[in-house]
């Protein structure tokens, strides 16, 4: 008995962390699943069991599909820029730029990621302003005035404008991650390639790319799951409008829960987000486990 107590005393170390996690992270996730089978609002605060009604309502709601589609668009564009373009930028930084300037550029590229997405969102809502915004001014200045529009105010462009801002904010961040990964590649590989007379492009494909594979996988995963969790920038710039055209799952959940007071429906949207992001993250874990055993 005494020995048992001594062993359990070691729990003093993990107790605060475990308690916080259970109460504020795990319990809500489980509770959300439960709540998605109930219906309630401010006027009938006692949840009423409704089975899968919330899910039926959600899956037949065009706005839900619109939101999901916007998340997918977010993921695709982010992959192109945050995994693709930033990889190219990182490789160029490594290949072309001398040490000192490289450090400077790396710092500079990271700055948008160091400021909050809210600041960036509000800033870009000024830049997108139809009358005084820099974007339209710039288009007019180069003779493309016919392209000028109310970027955030039109259904056809709202979500794309938000996505564009998000790329501006994040490319530098992933580029820096790639740079760090590239700096871990042993120099000898490049020297061998040079001896073989391999050009810069070929060296990139035969050495750099395979050597940063792990980081690439990681960034791809983070980018995709980030795209399904997006909330802030949409909230700040369009709040899902106009006419729900730029809703994403996160903002749609928020709107349903805290504006339309349809908590059950909102909880079922949350469940969908949970399933998607959990599947992506679990896939990544499984992948990295397997690789660790392989090597």
């Amino acid at each position, binding site marked *: 008995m005494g020995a048992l107590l001594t*062993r*359990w005393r*070691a*729990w003093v*170390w*993990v107790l*605060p*962390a475990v308690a*916080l*996690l259970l109460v*504020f*992270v*795990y*319990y*809500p*996730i489980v509770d*959300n699943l439960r709540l998605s089978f109930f219906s309630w609002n401010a006027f009938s605060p006692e949840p009423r069991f409704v089975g899968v009604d919330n899910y039926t309502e959600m899956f037949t709601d065009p706005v839900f599909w619109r939101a999901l589609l916007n998340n997918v668009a977010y993921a695709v564009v982010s992959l192109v820029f945050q995994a693709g373009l930033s990889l190219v*930028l990182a490789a*160029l930084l490594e290949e*072309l730029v001398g*040490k000192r300037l490289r450090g400077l*550029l790396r*710092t*500079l590229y990271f*700055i*948008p990621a*160091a*400021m*909050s997405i*809210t*600041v960036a969102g*509000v*800033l*870009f809502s000024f*830049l997108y302003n139809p009358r*005084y915004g*820099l974007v339209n001014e710039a288009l007019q200045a180069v003779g493309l005035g016919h392209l000028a529009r109310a970027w955030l105010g039109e259904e056809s462009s709202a979500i794309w404008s938000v996505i564009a801002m998000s790329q501006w904010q994040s490319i530098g961040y992933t580029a*820096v*991650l790639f740079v760090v990964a590239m*700096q*871990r590649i042993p*120099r000898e590989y490049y020297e061998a390639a040079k001896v073989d007379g*391999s*050009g810069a492009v070929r060296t990139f494909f035969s050495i750099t790319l395979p050597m940063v594979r792990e980081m690439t996988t990681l960034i791809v995963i983070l980018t995709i799951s980030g795209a399904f*969790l997006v*909330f*802030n920038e949409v*909230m700040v710039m369009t709040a899902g409008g106009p006419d729900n055209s730029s809703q994403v799952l*996160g903002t749609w*959940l*928020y709107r349903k*829960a805290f504006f339309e007071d349809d908590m059950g429906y*909102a909880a079922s949207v*949350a469940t969908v*987000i*949970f399933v998607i*992001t*959990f599947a992506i*993250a679990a896939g990544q*874990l499984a992948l990295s486990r397997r690789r660790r055993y392989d090597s």
Partner: protein
Amino acid sequence: MIALDSGVDRRTTAKHRPRATMSFRSVVGRVLGWTLLGAFAVAVLYPVLWMVLSGFKDNQEVFNQPWGLPGELRWENYARAWDLGVTRYFTNSVIVTSASIVATTLISAWAAYGLCRLKLPFGNGVALLVLGGLLLSPTVALIPLFRLLTAIGLFDTYWALIVLYTAFRIPFTIFLIRAYMIELPRSVDEAATIDGATRAQIFWRVILPMSRPILVSAALLQALFAWNEFAFALVFVSDESLKTLPVGLVSMQSRLLTDWPVVLAGLTIAALPTILLFLIGQRQFLRGLTEGVGK
């Protein structure tokens, strides 16, 4: 799995590149590469610069000469932004951010030590619980947390944000710190034990000081997270006097619709602390980021 000094540029032989043979094609490639790097630098920097400079303009200048420099440095815009609410938001952000930094780093370091040095009953279970916490996203928990916080009386208090920012960041921070502590030699603990120190004393007097570099990284990343967090701050605090910067700025933007310079000054004030933190602690930042995503 990943080297610790990732922020450090280990390349000493940067010039060992296939540069001797400058064919026409490689010249074109270099020009294109430099153009891309330069264009990206401008694209990143210009909006930030515009924000800072426009914060010094008057309305006339912002609307009529969006590309021009401010006629004079109107610090009064910054003073007005400060008076119109930024003071309060700023103070609130400082309170919430610093409290959550202290709580997160201490609780995580405490747990990390227990996990890597002690035999806990169900220790693997705890590790799994922490790992799983990495996969769960805040958005999914919004509705149950709203109920929970209301029920326990934390809704609309600083505590709501402090507790949540801590709970949701504990998994990441534990892994970050644990990866560092594992590398510390066990002989340190043993020597202290022989000197008659208790576990807790070893932790406070030996392990914690030795872990300083990673604690700094953890604290910086927590600062960036808490300072910029939006969703929780939006949903769980409704009292105007408790709002943090990200949410406060949005409400300020809607209050001051036409007074762009003041809003832009407010944005600059909000962005400055984290950008400065990043510039000063860049190495620790990058270490934390790459270690964190590498796990």
